[in-house]
């Protein structure tokens, strides 16, 4: 058996992997040589295992049935009809599934093109006030005989709207940092910066909490005469003051 190389390709499942193997080994799907496919598949899964890749259970279940197929074939052949049927049945079933899967796999590529084309067009969310009107006018002719599915749909819609209107809720893991601590940090950091620098330099890559503490620290430092400050447009520029020496 030729050496087998594993490409880390994202397969959508065992059927996808089998189609890939069939294509790669130029097997004929309509006259499938299940022996070759089984060998390839088993080799692929084994090498995935050797590379310590996690193998999803779906792959293993197909793996098991292919091994079962192979082991039955290895048994001394008692050329009874039952055995033949088994081979044909296994093969037919698999081919049928592969063909069916292939239909949707191929058509989903067209779906992808359609979706990407759609992404080039933007629509505008309705303004909030118009949405209120629309809800009201809808309410005025609400059919109270509606079924629960309609209700759920309507509620989902409102929740979705609500989410758009409300700012995202986020949990802030508060890192307690006191003004005193921050003042020490800033004093150290300033030595790495040019003598005049933007306040923004101190706030880079920091979360809101730290930015606020930084602001308070800077105010304190200004008071103590460590900095001079000048505001140009919306930028706060700080200059090392008398307390720093030169």
């Amino acid at each position, binding site marked *: 058996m030729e050496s087998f190389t594993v490409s880390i390709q*994202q397969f*959508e*499942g*065992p*059927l*996808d992997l089998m189609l890939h193997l069939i294509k790669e080994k130029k097997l004929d*799907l*309509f006259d499938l040589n299940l022996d070759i496919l089984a060998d390839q598949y088993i080799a692929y899964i084994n090498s995935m295992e050797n590379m310590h890749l996690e193998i*999803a259970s*779906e792959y293993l279940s*197909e793996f098991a049935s292919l091994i079962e197929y192979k082991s039955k074939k290895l048994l001394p052949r008692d050329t009874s009809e039952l055995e033949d049927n088994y081979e044909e049945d296994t093969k037919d079933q698999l081919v*049928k*599934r592969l*063909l*069916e*899967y*292939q*239909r*949707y*796999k*191929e*058509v*989903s*590529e*067209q*779906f*992808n093109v*359609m*979706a*990407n*084309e*759609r*992404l*080039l*067009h*933007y*629509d*505008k*969310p*309705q*303004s909030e006030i*118009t*949405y209120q009107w*629309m809800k009201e006018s809808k309410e005025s002719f609400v059919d109270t005989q509606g079924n629960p*599915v309609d209700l759920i*749909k309507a509620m*989902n819609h409102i929740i*979705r709207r609500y989410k758009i209107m409300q700012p995202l809720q986020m949990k802030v893991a508060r890192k307690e940092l006191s003004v005193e601590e921050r003042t020490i940090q800033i004093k150290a950091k300033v030595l790495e910066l040019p003598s005049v620098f933007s306040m923004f330099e101190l706030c880079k890559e920091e979360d809101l909490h730290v930015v606020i503490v930084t602001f308070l620290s800077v105010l304190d430092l200004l008071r103590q005469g460590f900095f001079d400050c000048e505001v140009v447009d919306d930028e706060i520029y700080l200059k090392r003051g008398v307390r720093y020496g030169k």
Partner: protein
Amino acid sequence: MESNLQAILEGILFIVGDEGVRLERLVETLEMDEEVIQSTLDAMISSYVQDDTRGVEIVCYGGCYKMVSKADVHEYAQRLFESTANKGFSPAALETLAIIAYKQPITRAEIEEIRGVGCDMMIRKLLARNLIKEVGRTDAPGRPFLYGVTEAFMDAFQLQSLEELPELPDFAKEEESENLFG
């Protein structure tokens, strides 16, 4: 009246935004014949598309009319906003949606049978994105839910109706016809 109607429709489409508006609703509101409104909308759709001086066009996705910016604007919108975070679909999502679109109403088990992988999470994600919906239950044991596609699905794939779905390739048939002639 004809040009006036165009102006009214244009205004309404502007106001309704991404919600869009359905033909029935327009008929109700304008108290006019469905055919008149329909043909005016059709005329507007083609005139917007042909007119290169316009940056918006009128579309009808899943029976809902609305205005969208033209594809040519996309490049500039991206520059304007630096990022336009519109997500596409993963191959797994596309496969699942395709199966549901063609075979709806369909149960999760049937989808899994075709794809050969578990689809529980995927279905939940698609439900959350409002691309599919529960359309009922079967009488099979456990009364599993049946799924179908939504209007948002039609919008996401630019479909006016399900009849516009691309033809599903049939490999099994190809083989038959080959055998027939071969």
